[in-house]
């Protein structure tokens, strides 16, 4: 079963996203939560993923909307509501959190 990586810190505030990308397998899912959603802003996101390839990218919708970022998201990031967050957890093992 693929792993689910939760990234809770913005790319500039910590190495969380970078470390996650080095340790995540290609079929793993990466869910950006809290300030982690800043990692989904189009420009920086494309720079992150260019070197490590596209994994399955998700961002918590409530956190994106709370930060007024909806129109700035990279297109390949799928928005996820809290119920779908639970489904991601149910469908992946282990759950790896990065901060």
């Amino acid at each position, binding site marked *: 079963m693929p792993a689910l990586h939760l990234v809770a810190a913005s790319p500039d505030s910590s190495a969380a996203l970078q470390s996650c990308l080095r340790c995540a397998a290609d079929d793993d899912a990466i869910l950006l*939560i809290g300030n982690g959603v800043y990692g989904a802003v189009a420009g920086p996101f494309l720079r992150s993923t260019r070197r490590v390839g596209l994994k399955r990218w998700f961002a918590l919708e409530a956190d994106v909307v709370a930060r007024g970022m909806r129109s700035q998201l990279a297109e390949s990031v799928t*928005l996820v509501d809290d119920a779908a967050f*639970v489904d991601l*957890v*149910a469908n992946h093992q282990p*759950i790896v959190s*990065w901060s």
Partner: protein
Amino acid sequence: MMRNTILSSDRRRDPMNISIAIHGDAAASESPSLALRFARAAVAKGHRIHRVFFYHAGVALANSLVVQPQGERDIAEEWAAFARDHDVELAVCIAAALRRGVLSDDDAARYERGGSNVKPPFRIVGLGQWVDAVVASDRVVTFPA
């Protein structure tokens, strides 16, 4: 215009036992509020929250002496209400709690401190309760500081 696809929720699947670890305090981290949203959604989907384990800075949520300013969310109280409504255990690691000044009646007596300050229904437990939760759960989700 919405450019991003939205993941919609699966049909209901078999209920799971899920444990949650919270490592951050509400004053400095979104960890407790993110975890609460997740817990509410998990219960709404029919899963069971086996235990919520508060460790590192997260033990501060159990501090009954905290006074929230008027008009600000009281995440600790929201957790307490959630725990009561859904019969979920809020377990606070004793070693982390002692270090950060959250003391049960027993600890206050043992260490001759002025008073105890654990907010019900949070409970002080040993670290073994975390291992127990890991063994008993299908999934363990940590919300880091």
